[in-house]
């Protein structure tokens, strides 16, 4: 079959076939972060959650923030991959696998945050044995299980033809590739089966992804606390997730574009389109945030206003206004015109958004807990080295998983690029022709 070696594709298989010193430096650095996280968690496991900065009444802090944040990043894969695939956007071809891998890896890290947050992690199986479906945490467990299963399937299926290429071409790990390739030989029938399965998964993954971040938001909005008990939370969190997900994806693309010399595949046009999507999400995010705070302010309920002013001018004002700067001002300035310096602008915007969206989760979780309804003494939440370490370790673990993936499988879908080159150009031409007013010979 067509293993006609396109010299350009060698670059896609290079990371699997050769390992340079950069890889080992990266692994060493990430391992340090993970070590910090591991030590931090060990201390917490043996001594209790008291080693964190949490206290009465702020029972949730960094870990729950990280949970929401990482699950939010996971929406990168769904949007890019599924929606662009269904809308037949051809520019998605080099991006889809990167996005799907992010989703799969980051869900583990996100779900792991909840386990880290438990006071009795040795009893985590209680959720399985004795779960109550009235609790939003069980909705989370079910939804995230569904999303993980769907994402893994949705990552694996389009990988099959590429694994077949590796099976035929690579000398090492032949058993692994042979098993996973499922005997793929590129026949027309196999292509039909695969494309149909991918299409079904693409349609299924989107509502599951929407449900995932909605139920994450329901953990907060199903309580009666001021600033949490809001109907906007479901859509707000989904929009925020897609927003942070695209930013995360762009950063991943930029890093690997540099590291694996993928400039031929990840061109400025891809960053430009993603940048435009990012701009739209920034405006959408701002709209939801504005609606949420305007409603609270206008109603002026005393308990809502306590939390409101805490965010605007009170102890949380640095985090709140940095969030607005990072999520709205910087993206708007950077992304308004993407004709020149596309990659640079998009990178600055994405870094700002990743920081800003983390702050947004923090601003949702902590101020409400800090200002309870009844007259308690005010407490201020300061995270300790344990929480910083756990956060660093989580990022490190995610990055390491991702890096290891790129060493086993191509990070850009080889067969989809080939498909784009060989068949899609004509397909798109025919499609556009079908939109235009026809001549007499054209069928109705």
């Amino acid at each position: 079959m067509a293993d006609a070696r396109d010299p350009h594709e060698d670059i896609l298989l290079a990371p699997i076939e050769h390992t340079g010193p950069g890889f080992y430096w990266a692994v060493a650095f990430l391992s340090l972060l993970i070590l910090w996280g591991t030590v931090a968690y060990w201390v917490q496991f043996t001594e209790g959650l008291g080693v964190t900065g949490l206290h009465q009444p702020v029972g949730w802090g960094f870990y729950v923030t990280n949970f929401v944040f990482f699950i939010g990043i996971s929406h990168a894969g769904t949007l890019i991959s599924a929606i662009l695939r269904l809308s037949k956007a051809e520019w998605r071809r080099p991006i889809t696998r990167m996005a799907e891998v992010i989703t799969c890896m980051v869900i583990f890290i996100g779900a792991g945050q909840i386990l880290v947050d438990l006071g009795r992690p040795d009893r985590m199986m209680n959720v399985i044995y004795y779960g109550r479906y009235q609790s939003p945490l069980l909705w989370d467990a079910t939804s995230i299980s569904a999303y993980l299963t769907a994402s893994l399937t949705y990552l694996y299926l389009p990988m099959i033809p590429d694994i077949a290429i590796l099976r035929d071409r690579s000398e090492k790990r032949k058993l692994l590739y042979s098993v996973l390739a499922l005997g793929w030989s590129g026949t027309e029938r196999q292509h039909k089966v695969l494309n149909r399965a991918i299409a079904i998964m693409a349609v299924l993954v989107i509502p599951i992804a929407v449900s995932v971040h909605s139920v994450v938001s329901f953990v907060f909005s199903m309580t009666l606390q001021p600033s949490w008990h809001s109907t906007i939370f479901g859509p707000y969190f989904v929009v925020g997730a897609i927003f942070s997900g695209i930013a995360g994806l762009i950063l991943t693309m930029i890093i690997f574009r540099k590291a694996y010399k993928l400039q031929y595949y990840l061109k400025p046009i891809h960053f430009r389109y993603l940048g435009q999507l990012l701009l739209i999400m920034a405006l959408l995010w701002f709209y939801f945030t504005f609606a949420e705070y305007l409603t609270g302010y206008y109603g002026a309920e005393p308990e809502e206003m306590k939390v409101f002013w805490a965010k605007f001018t009170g102890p949380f004002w640095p985090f709140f206004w940095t969030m607005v700067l990072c999520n709205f001002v910087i993206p708007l300035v950077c992304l308004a015109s993407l004709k020149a310096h596309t990659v640079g602008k998009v990178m600055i915007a994405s870094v700002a958004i990743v920081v800003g969206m983390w702050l947004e989760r923090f601003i949702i979780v902590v101020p409400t807990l800090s200002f309870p309804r009844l007259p308690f003494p005010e407490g201020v939440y300061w995270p300790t080295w344990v929480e910083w370490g756990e956060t660093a370790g989580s990022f490190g673990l995610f990055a390491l998983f991702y890096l290891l993936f790129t060493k086993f499988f191509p990070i850009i879908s080889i067969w989809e690029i080939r498909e784009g080159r060989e068949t899609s150009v004509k397909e798109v031409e025919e499609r556009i022709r079908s939109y235009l007013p026809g001549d007499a010979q054209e069928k109705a």
Partner: protein
Amino acid sequence: MTNAPSDRLVRTLQWVWLGAAFLLVGGIIVWIVGLIRAAWTLDDFLSASVGISIVAIPIFLVFMGVVFYVFWGVAVHGRSGED
């Protein structure tokens, strides 16, 4: 190639791979049904359990279906059309 794994080993492992997928998804479905039973026994908001399972279980069944479909169409039938 001398280090090519035997066809039989590969096929066995592929069936194991499929079995693992079925176990994962099947396990999740069994779990959800178990939670419905618990809620019924304890008379604790059965509506929530039933409502969620009505949505969740069909979704997981579709996953199983897709995985099986791909396995059948690519691995099993694909072989017969192999050159």
